[in-house]
């Protein structure tokens, strides 16, 4: 256990990194998933294969990319393929073990919205959209989701099904002919959740150090289901925390050490 005080965000990223195995092949989204995947690579999973949808396969960036296509990803990749090949041979081909997604809105069954808040035709807020998520959710063997808890984000009913998790729960995936497992893990800044084997509702199985059940419920828009036996997430180790912070520091330096647009011209 680390003597350093860690933030909930750091705990989230580190808990997510621990779920990844050395032989996983991860399709990595930007933000928390990218940090978690690279912390795993820099600690317990040195041979993990990280794939970004820009076509970089087996990449090992020294700093986190701001986008999914920074030059660093290609420079350090085993190979870089065109985007149609990425989606056909690599994702649809069933080669991804873990698809790592974030969410603007999430429901208890792991369905994700990153498209619109409000009505699709007349949105209150137009979000970026699904990008790779609809097929990442369908073709990866398992889906891990990571997001910070909030009443706005973890909702009873999402406004738009950008990507399908367990739908209405139970065997809904199988009924649609989807053969992959779907969301098997949710890591938030407060807890670790796994789907109930029967209902597929996300269930809290581990709570991060210093967090209470009440905290978890207070930042979740649905009535939280807790497992019979709940563990306490082991706090970040010194190595984990140092690795994450060093990575973030290198990233910050890299992203800010360049001219700004007002002066560049």
């Amino acid at each position: 256990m680390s003597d350093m005080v860690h933030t909930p965000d750091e705990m989230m990223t580190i808990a997510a990194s621990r779920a990844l195995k050395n032989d996983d092949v991860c399709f990595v989204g930007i933000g928390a998933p990218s940090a978690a995947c690279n912390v795993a690579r820099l600690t317990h999973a040195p041979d993990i294969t990280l794939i970004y949808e820009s076509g970089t396969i087996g990449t090992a960036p020294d700093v986190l990319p701001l986008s999914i296509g920074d030059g660093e990803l290609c420079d350090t990749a085993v190979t870089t393929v065109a985007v149609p090949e990425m989606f056909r041979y690599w994702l649809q081909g069933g080669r991804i073990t873990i698809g790592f997604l974030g969410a603007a809105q999430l429901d208890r069954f792991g369905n994700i919205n990153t498209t619109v808040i409000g009505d699709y035709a007349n949105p209150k807020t137009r979000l970026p959209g699904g990008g790779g998520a609809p097929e990442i959710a369908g073709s990866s063997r398992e889906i891990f989701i990571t997001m910070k808890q909030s009443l706005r984000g973890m909702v009873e009913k999402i406004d738009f099904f950008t990507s399908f998790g367990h739908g209405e729960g139970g065997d809904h995936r199988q009924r649609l002919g989807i053969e992959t497992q779907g969301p098997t893990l949710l890591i938030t800044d407060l807890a670790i959740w796994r789907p109930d084997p029967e209902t597929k509702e996300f269930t809290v199985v581990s709570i991060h150090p210093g967090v209470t059940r009440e905290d978890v419920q207070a930042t979740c828009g649905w009535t939280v289901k807790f497992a019979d036996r709940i563990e306490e997430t082991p706090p970040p180790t010194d190595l984990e925390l140092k690795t994450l912070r060093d990575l973030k520091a290198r990233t910050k330096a890299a992203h800010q050490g360049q001219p700004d647009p007002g002066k560049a011209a």
Partner: protein
Amino acid sequence: MAKFQPLADAVLENLNDGDVVAFEGFTHLIPHAAAHEAIRQGKKDLTIIRMTPDLIYDQLIGMGMVKRMIFSYAGNPGVGLLRRMRDAVENGWPQALELEEHSHAAMANAYEAGAAGLPCAVFRGYRGAELAKVNSNVRSVACPFTGEVLAAVPAVRPDVAFIHAQKADRKGNVLIEGILGVQKEAVLAATRSVVTVEEIVDDLNAHPNACLLPDWTVGTICLVPGGAHPSYAHGYYVRDNAYYIAWDKIASDREAFLSWMKENVLDATPEDFGGRVGKLRSAA
């Protein structure tokens, strides 16, 4: 056979009001200079296509040039939303924007089908995804062997595609290296094409299996060093991440946006791009 032209002439000859146009690039090699030239020429009623519309699409939309956008992820990657696009979709400013929205897999397959001369792309996708319900261009076919229902989307076939590449040789063969996106597909799928390049060389010295567009597949080549800025050109200059971060603020306000556009686009030239990447070259 590829023609060599100044960018202004190439845009004038190849992009018409009402065209379906793709300014493609996947984080890498985004054709900013070409889009800025289109903005200076004030083209109208465009249908713009791109997997990852980002700053230049925010700019085209904010300048009122676009009636429809076909896309799969409209964000400022790693930073946030596209505020000019939001303003058009949410408030109709400066004009309403029609959206045809897909997933990345659908768009990538649609470009591939366009390059392959097919009317549609067939893939495993959209299962349980609500886009299939709001986009009438998401349909399906059944595999005649297994009965599996697969998704189908129309092929992308732009009137004109703009891309930025690292090099062309004097004959007009174009080389792209690093992150490739769907740029080769965009050019092969399009009726016309304009390629801006970092440099024109005697010999590409290309790897036999590199991503190369033969001269006879390319319409026009324009020498525009720095023409991908603030995105990057692998081997030439790095991505100007600070610019992307700063864009969020510029685009958040209509007046700030318009005055930035006047200063940095309307009153600028393709030659300005070279200077913008000066400090970014050393890190490449």
